[in-house]
């Protein structure tokens, strides 16, 4: 018996196509993985998705509010990893405050009449974390922890949870999947082309993964994919898929680069592995910290228009 979104043929077909595609690609890359570092690296990246994607589809198909709960948990896990990375995880007051605000954001999304509070929460958060040193009567390193907590909340709470806001729109789960696929695809194409053919590094002091060639190829291919999968959007007008493709290719890279800046400053490559594959959870979520809010507001703007 089918439950939730599994009853929607579009959702079922998308899930089957994607899982089938990943399995086929995975098999090919696995067989080629012994033939060089590039394929080996591609296999390391892909294998986590082969395990994760069916699980993600199963969760997102659940009735409300479970997809939202899932996104809030992802957001909390990202915040935890960020705090560990910047060495603030043992500052429990800041960590707990951030967690509470992320959960609060989730509740605001769940309860639409409170929606007007969503964009106010970064301000309220800043006010709250500023009070922590006062309440604890301590000053040492407090600017650092207040700033890091705010960055953490804005990126992995407020910003990332815009993806969860799509879940309250009609057909929102499919938009979420659409954006997620575009950003992942865009990053992997940019990385693969940059590594294989890339010459002109655009941000050599921040990331070796972004070259002009890689960026341009990923832009074109992401737009093609956005066009090819536009049936996932509730409105098939050109501006919707065009904006999604452009945002995923351009602002997805910015999210990636912002995290690279933080990692480089800290001297860290990654904080562990996410499920079985390459990189940590932040490397999976960083692409969405700009794409999520920007596309959400543009989508609302288009809808009003």
């Amino acid at each position, binding site marked *: 018996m089918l439950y939730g979104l599994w009853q929607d043929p579009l959702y079922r077909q998308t899930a089957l196509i994607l899982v089938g595609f990943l399995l086929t690609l995975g098999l090919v890359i696995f067989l080629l993985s012994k033939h060089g570092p590039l394929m080996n690296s591609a296999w390391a990246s892909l294998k986590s998705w082969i395990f994760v994607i069916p699980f993600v589809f199963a969760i997102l198909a659940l009735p409300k509010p479970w997809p939202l709960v899932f996104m809030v948990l992802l957001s909390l896990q990202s915040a935890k990893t960020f705090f*560990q*990375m*910047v*060495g*603030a*995880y*043992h500052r*429990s007051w800041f960590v707990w405050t951030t967690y509470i605000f992320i959960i609060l954001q989730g509740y605001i999304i769940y309860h639409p009449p409170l929606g007007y509070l969503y964009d106010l929460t970064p301000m309220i958060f800043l006010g709250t974390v500023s009070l922590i040193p006062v309440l604890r009567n301590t000053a040492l*390193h407090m600017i*650092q922890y207040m700033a890091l907590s705010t960055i953490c909340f804005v990126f992995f709470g407020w910003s990332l949870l815009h993806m969860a806001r799509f879940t309250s729109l009609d057909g929102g789960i499919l938009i979420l999947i659409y954006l997620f696929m575009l950003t992942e695809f865009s990053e992997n194409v940019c990385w693969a082309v940059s590594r294989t053919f890339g010459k002109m590094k655009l941000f050599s002091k921040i990331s070796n993964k972004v070259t002009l060639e890689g960026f341009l190829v990923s832009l074109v291919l992401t737009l093609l994919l956005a066009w090819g999968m536009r049936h996932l959007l509730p409105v098939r007008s050109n501006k919707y898929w065009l904006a999604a493709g452009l945002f995923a290719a351009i602002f997805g890279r910015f999210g990636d680069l912002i995290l690279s800046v933080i990692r480089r400053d*800290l001297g*860290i490559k990654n*904080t*562990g592995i996410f499920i079985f594959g390459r990189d940590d959870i932040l490397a999976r979520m960083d692409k969405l910290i700009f794409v999520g809010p920007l596309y959400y507001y543009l989508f609302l703007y288009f809808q009003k228009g």
Partner: protein
Amino acid sequence: MRDWNYENDQWMKLPGHIKHLPLFTRHFDLVSLLFRCLWGFFLKALAFRFYVRLKVIGDFHALYKSQKRLILISNHSSHLDAVSIAAAVPFKYWMDLYISAAKDYWFRNPVFTFFSKHCLGAIPIDRKDRSGEAIKLCTSLLTNLERIWLILFPEGTRSKDGFIQPFKRGVSLFSMKTDTPILFLYIEGNKDLMPKGAFLPRPGVLKVHVGPVFPPAPVDELYDAYKAWVLTINPNAYAAEEATTQALA
């Protein structure tokens, strides 16, 4: 301008299987706390109350007040031993309780590793490692933590016949190097409930005897003192010739 101080060594430098140990930062992960609570409830309120009926002979509360750092040693003939001691220690002291556990068993796969890290707070001891990594790990914790109760099994491995074997020198080494006193414990009934090779324990009565606190000492001295104490509880704890030698002495 002064640089920011990123205190991330705990999470960025340590390998996954020892990230839970407070080697750089005294901090309890929420996941650890949650699973420790769940495990504590299961162990104390269910498993060691109704299935294995645990009796603790001695007072851990008084010891906790007087001894901030201790090495808890016990006889070892079953996988039940470490959890029996944990079940005997009051839950409120659990966050200061660490168990040295064989890496090749307790950290053999991701499920066991998760359980050992978050439920037991285990310190992985690689029995094949000759570089002294385990010694460094235990010494570092015993030196740097203000409060720590470390459970060690000085026989090194589980006894096949249930009789107590001679001690390895590791326990004395840790104790003398870090000036940590040793608490004697004796588990009675462990071999009958879960002998070596058994997959699950049998229901029954298990007694944990809390003994005296012994100052840091060479291994022979420690072994003799422990043996003398255990023989007052169970004259059959040692193999026949061992017990006779002790009685004659």
